[in-house]
């Protein structure tokens, strides 16, 4: 039992130990910490591989990154089979003892960052493999979640990168289909459609006999700009991994469970106001109904329960915008993906099921604690008090919200597309805060071949 108990949630300790180092751009130091503190990754082999892979990616060690991210893909695939014993144990202890399977958007981004690694190594065919694997994952995800609008179903950032990869490989039809899917993904999710993508998709679809797609997506013509990339043309795509992803924190819930199957509960919202809600709690066992013959029943009696639920916590960072300069031409990076929206969406979509499972567990455990207390009662008031307090404390300690999340992801995935003729170029890439002050900058020399989409990665988590 002591294995399940801990003073602090491992995810919070992991955040303190790893994320702060990453935010100061000490990626290799953070990776060394991950390796050193392997014990923080109990039941989270997936996160261990994802964390190491992402840190090596940020450090520009794309080959090392690909090794760990591929390991993460393998772990995630192997986790398809749910362990019956583990699931049963989670019902008694807490969700943290289930192996972490990753949130749906994290799995897409896992393949996306693997594709980035291969693009960074100029291995375009391998990047396409990752694009195709993410497409298969998203197809299965849509099948699983059906038409539920709250669920993560597609990913605009991923589809945009997929379009660029296909385009760079000269696979025009796949590129156009991915462009269509990219716009559709933004429209369906309600996330803002990047203006550059809308303009590009419209021009590409119209020029390639897909007018009906442009019409269906409600895309229209816009002002022509010679600095915009042309479909099939060579360009430098600067991917900015900017800012820090939010993490998960615990929110305390408390309430009264009525034994007839009703739970009235309260929690404090982000503004500090107490919110009250009610839900159907687990019903009565048959043994209670069998007491209808005059014996005492506990139906209608109540008891107090408390638990905690994961809630989104923003992590502040100065890095906000991406700016790329080639000579006198300056390109602003547009936001294609925001992990705040993705994580919030995931929490909203699964709140009901997490709440139900947690409440069921807490209620079962509270009943068990009551039985334990009554069986341990003695004639000594002081001893009774100690035993009762101890049992309550043990039950409380067991409950921990599942705060596991891939918080090393950037807050924003920004892209600046710089159309160029084949040749060698020098770019000034920088991140800025909300007031336009430069947070960090780098000079990069980039060589581009005819028709090539040359990807350059820039990380600013500070």
């Amino acid at each position, binding site marked *: 039992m002591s294995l399940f108990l801990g003073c602090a949630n491992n995810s919070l300790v992991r955040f303190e130990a790893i994320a702060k180092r990453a935010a100061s751009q000490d990626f290799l130091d953070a990776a060394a910490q991950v390796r050193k503190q392997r014990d923080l990754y109990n039941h989270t082999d997936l996160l261990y591989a994802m964390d190491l892979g992402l840190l090596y990616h940020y450090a520009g060690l794309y080959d090392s990154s690909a090794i760990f991210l591929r390991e993460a893909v393998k772990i995630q695939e192997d986790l398809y*089979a*749910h362990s*019956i014993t583990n699931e049963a144990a989670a019902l008694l202890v807490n969700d943290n003892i289930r192996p972490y399977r990753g949130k749906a958007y994290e799995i897409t981004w896992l393949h996306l960052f693997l594709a980035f690694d291969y693009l960074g190594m100029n291995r375009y065919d*391998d990047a396409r*493999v990752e694009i*195709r694997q993410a497409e*298969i994952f998203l*197809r299965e995800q849509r099948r699983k979640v059906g038409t539920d609008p709250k669920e993560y179903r597609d990913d605009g950032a991923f589809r945009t990168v997929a379009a660029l990869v296909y385009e760079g490989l000269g696979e025009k039809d796949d590129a156009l289909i991915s462009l269509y899917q990219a716009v559709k993904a933004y429209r369906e999710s309600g996330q803002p459609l990047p203006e550059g993508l809308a303009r590009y998709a419209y021009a590409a679809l119209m020029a390639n006999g897909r007018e009906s797609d442009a019409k269906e997506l409600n895309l229209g013509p816009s002002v022509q700009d010679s600095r915009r990339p042309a479909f099939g043309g060579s360009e430098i795509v600067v991917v900015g991994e900017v800012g820090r992803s939010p993490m998960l924190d615990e929110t305390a819930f408390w309430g009264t469970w009525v034994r007839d199957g009703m739970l009235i509960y309260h929690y404090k919202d982000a503004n500090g106001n107490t919110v009250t809600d009610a839900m159907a709690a687990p019903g009565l066992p048959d043994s209670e109904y069998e007491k209808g013959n005059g014996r005492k029943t506990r139906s209608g009696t109540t008891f107090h329960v408390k638990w905690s639920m994961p809630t989104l916590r923003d992590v502040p960072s100065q890095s906000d915008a991406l700016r790329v300069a080639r000579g006198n031409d300056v390109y602003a990076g547009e936001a294609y993906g925001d992990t705040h929206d993705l994580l919030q969406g995931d929490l909203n979509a699964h709140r009901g099921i997490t709440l139900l499972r947690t409440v069921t567990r807490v209620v079962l455990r509270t009943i068990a604690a009551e039985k334990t207390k009554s069986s341990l009662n003695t004639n000594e008031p002081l001893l009774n008090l100690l035993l009762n307090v101890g049992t309550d404390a043990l039950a409380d300690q067991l409950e921990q919200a599942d705060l596991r999340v891939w918080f090393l992801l950037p807050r924003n995935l920004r892209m600046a597309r710089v159309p160029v003729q084949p040749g060698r170029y020098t770019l000034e890439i920088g991140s800025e805060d909300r007031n336009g002050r430069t947070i960090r900058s780098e000079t990069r020399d980039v060589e581009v071949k005819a028709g090539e989409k040359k990807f350059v990665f820039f990380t600013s988590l500070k």
Partner: protein
Amino acid sequence: MTPFGTRISSLAVSVLLLSGCGTKVTRVSHDSTIDLSGEWNDTDSRLVAEEMVKDAVSANWYKAYETQKKIPRVVIGEIRNKSHEHINTETFINDIQRYLVNSGKVEFVANKAERKELRDEKSDQAQNSSVESQQMAGEESGAELMMLGEINSIVDSEGGKSVVFYQINLELVQIESHKKVWLGDKKIKKFVEKSASKL
């Protein structure tokens, strides 16, 4: 059974169970078929190479060489992986080369990257080796045909079940005329089922 006997039996069962936890390695024949994940593996690479080589050297284009009692010289071009899996095309290319060379019906010349390395060596020899042992530049055998190809796949999946279809296309192109003298394909279909639960 006596209490002592019961204890001994329990201990034996525990030891047996625990002994199953270590790594176990068994040597198997290099050409045995073992499917673990359902992904492209060495067996696929070997079988596809073997069958496609058989098909290639029994096709019409080869008869023209046979009647002239000539052995065609082939260079391997790009064989691209367009599938959904990371497939080591080098292994596949090596399998093809091995079957073709061992058949005695085709000669291979070094590919672009290998030629560069060989030329560097010759240039080094020109400066450092004795005249008698020096290998001369300008004496290479030029290839007449280039082999090109790609590996494609289609995946249809639902839940833990998936059907994976691989199509491997190879072609031989005359370097001088750009004529395609042989087009071959090989298809593999796999049904992969993953269990949704375990103990």
